[in-house]
């Protein structure tokens, strides 16, 4: 349904949970919007209403989503290649297959909202403003890296993205704290704390739930359920695999995390929920990773190749969006191919730039342990005479 007439903002907002972004695009009447109906199984709710199944979204937004997902997948594939070429060392957890979560979230949020997640963070870093070069350089441990080459795969940050955390579950109470600060400082924004199905059994996650509900924080807890915690199937780690219900006193919503529009809709809903003062909300994104837990894991010892293939063929987020774009005549096949090609070129160029960057200066070894000029004059080294003076 195309609509070019001006509609009052209030009426628009009163319709199914439209994001501020879409409202803005509505207001500028030159933009053409699409109404897409999500599958009836896209949501399942717990102690709350499900978001509406019809999504109003602009064509530009849809194309942007497609471009983001394609670029993200290229970036992860490039990382895969670099790791196998032994240029990336250490640990590398790729989000191939899970792109819809990062992209759907970002399009529903603003820069004021905060996101924090665990180690499968390259996609989120990209969506939150990290350049591909800086992400790849960080993986390579180079100066141009987003953390100066000092963090690596699991430690990437942008001004509104709190990482990138290595210890499973530790980021969830952090997310509650960020949400508290937002409320305290009067921001009309929310914090999205992501964790996986494996992490959902960490005690600190429940501590965070309790604090968030007690103090009605604008915290949205998002469980990215990709069915496997490293090599352990969800059913073998969790007594209750309905992760969206694990919040008990916190209402929850299960979302088809392979459909970028469902994610978008749910995240917009969640943001509206928390920012309007209803307290925290739990989202469970049903998603899937095609690769293993990390680059050291083939990903086939605990699940069948048939399952992976089935998910790739039938539930791929990029293919799903592609079909929608074609169905609604948003762009042509050729334009899509052009986007694919442009993404490949962009990522290839970023790989070259990242490789060209040098290793961090040795001086960086001693920086950022404490605040600069914090009254810590020196760092002791390996032997008595080896002192580093600031």
């Amino acid at each position: 349904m195309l609509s070019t007439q001006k509609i009052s903002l209030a009426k628009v907002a009163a319709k199914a949970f439209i994001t501020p972004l879409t409202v803005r695009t509505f207001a500028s009447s030159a933009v053409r919007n699409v109404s897409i109906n999500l599958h009836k199984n896209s949501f399942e709710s717990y102690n709350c209403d499900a978001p509406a199944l019809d999504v109003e979204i602009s064509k530009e937004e849809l194309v942007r989503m497609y471009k983001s997902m394609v670029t993200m997948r290229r970036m992860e594939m490039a990382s895969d290649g670099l790791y196998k070429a032994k240029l990336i060392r250490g640990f590398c957890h790729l989000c191939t297959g899970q792109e819809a979560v990062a992209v759907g979230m970002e399009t529903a949020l603003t820069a004021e909202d905060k996101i924090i997640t665990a180690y499968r963070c390259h996609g989120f870093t990209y969506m939150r403003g990290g350049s591909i070069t800086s992400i790849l350089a960080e993986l390579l441990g180079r100066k141009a890296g987003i953390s100066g080459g000092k963090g690596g795969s699991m430690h990437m940050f942008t001004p509104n993205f709190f990482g990138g955390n290595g210890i499973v579950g530790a980021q969830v109470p952090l997310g509650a704290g960020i949400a508290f600060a937002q409320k305290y400082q009067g921001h009309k924004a929310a914090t999205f704390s992501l964790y996986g199905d494996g992490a959902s059994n960490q005690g600190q996650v429940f501590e965070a739930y309790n604090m968030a509900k007690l103090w009605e924080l604008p915290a949205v807890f998002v469980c990215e359920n990709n069915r496997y915690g490293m090599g352990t199937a969800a059913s073998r780690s969790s007594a209750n695999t309905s992760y969206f219900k694990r919040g008990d006193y916190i209402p929850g919503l299960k979302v088809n995390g392979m459909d970028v529009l469902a994610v978008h809709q749910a995240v917009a809903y969640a943001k509206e929920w928390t920012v309007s003062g209803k307290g925290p909300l739990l989202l469970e994104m049903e998603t899937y990773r095609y690769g293993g837990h990390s680059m050291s894991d083939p990903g086939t010892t605990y699940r069948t190749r048939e399952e992976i293939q089935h998910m790739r063929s039938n539930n791929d987020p990029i293919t799903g969006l592609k079909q929608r774009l074609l169905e609604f005549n948003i762009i042509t096949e050729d334009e899509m191919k052009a986007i694919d090609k442009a993404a490949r070129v962009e990522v290839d160029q970023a790989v070259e730039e990242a490789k060209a960057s040098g290793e961090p200066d040795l001086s960086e070894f001693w920086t950022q342990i404490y605040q600069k000029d914090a009254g810590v004059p020196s760092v002791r080294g390996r032997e008595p005479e080896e002192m580093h003076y600031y």
Partner: protein
Amino acid sequence: MSTTLLRSARLASSLSSLSRTFLHQGTTVKHLHTSLKTHYAASNSPPPAEGFLPGVANSQLIKHTHHDALRNPELAGVANGETKKMNTFQAINDAMSIALATDDTACVFGEDVGFGGVFRCTMGLAEMFGRDRVFNTPLSEQGIAGFGIGMAAMGSTAIAEIQFADYIFPAFDQIVNEAAKYRYRSGGEFNVGGLCIRTPCGAVGHGGHYHSQSPEAYFAHTPGIKVVVPRSPIQAKGLLLASIRDRNPTIFMEPKILYRAAVEMVPVGDYELPLGKAEILTQGKDLTIVGWGAQLYILENAIQLAKTKMPGLSVELIDLRSILPWDVETVCNSVNKTGRLLIAHEAPKTQGFAAEIASTVMERCFLRLEAPIQRLCSYDTPFPLVFEKFHVPDMVRCAEGIERAMKF
């Protein structure tokens, strides 16, 4: 010193001809680096999670033959038995197998132990002893520790695994406040002696912040628990069996880089090695060196390197084995003999365990000391990713420390 030189020095930690070439003047460092790289050129597979430590294969500390292994007086109980070639994870597996076979109440649990564990330490145990005795836990370190404490309080033997020592901190409260104090605060009514927590620790070359830490110092500060660090397969098996059977909660820290690197002829029988007792690896009269775990191989190479500068140097190398309680007598007797002490460990310098050893030795051997006690430890920074080779006390640094101790 340039990056390349230091990196090559670290790589050249084996006493093969490569390192001898390095020690001669005039050899280009680049050549050395390339030949070591091709030596390890592998297929498209990622590097092993345990890393590489090439020097271990040529180490004199490793017992390569059956007779060499059984010459150890501590193995008198199995001196007539067979030995089998095992690496560290196989030796640990064997120890747990024996523990499960000889103790009906023993259970092994932790993240992913069912299929064999991320380092294969628990391979085959679930199949042999049943999934009710060898089972996976969810991703909850605090839960694992607490659960193990509860089991042990009921008299069972709980062998818990924390997948990496870096993840042990959520369990820190349980270990320090529950396990360590149970016997004391219950006036002896309960104890958790049957608890043994096993965890891989130490640097591997690519571990970064959260797969490389050595947290022994945090736990050494806790009366009521024991902390043990083995250096080789024979030691690992004996010390692990002793740790499991010891009626005090014990933390067994396994240097993960040794899982595959160290291969010895390990006695197949049931044997224990004493806890709380250090082992003198080489006798000497000039300098006492104390270390534990993988650092001993670095120290061995450092001693060799130092001997090229100081021929005739006679060093007494001691493997501490137990961090808590540590063998004060052996170390102090040795220092009283030599008058000089050097301690090296991978953990950061400030408040590392070397500080405790140095203070105690200073108290006991003050008048005998000929030189300040040398502590070769890592920099006081979080464990870095790209800067790892600058962070840890490698062979060259340790050799410099030896020189400093001798030439004071």
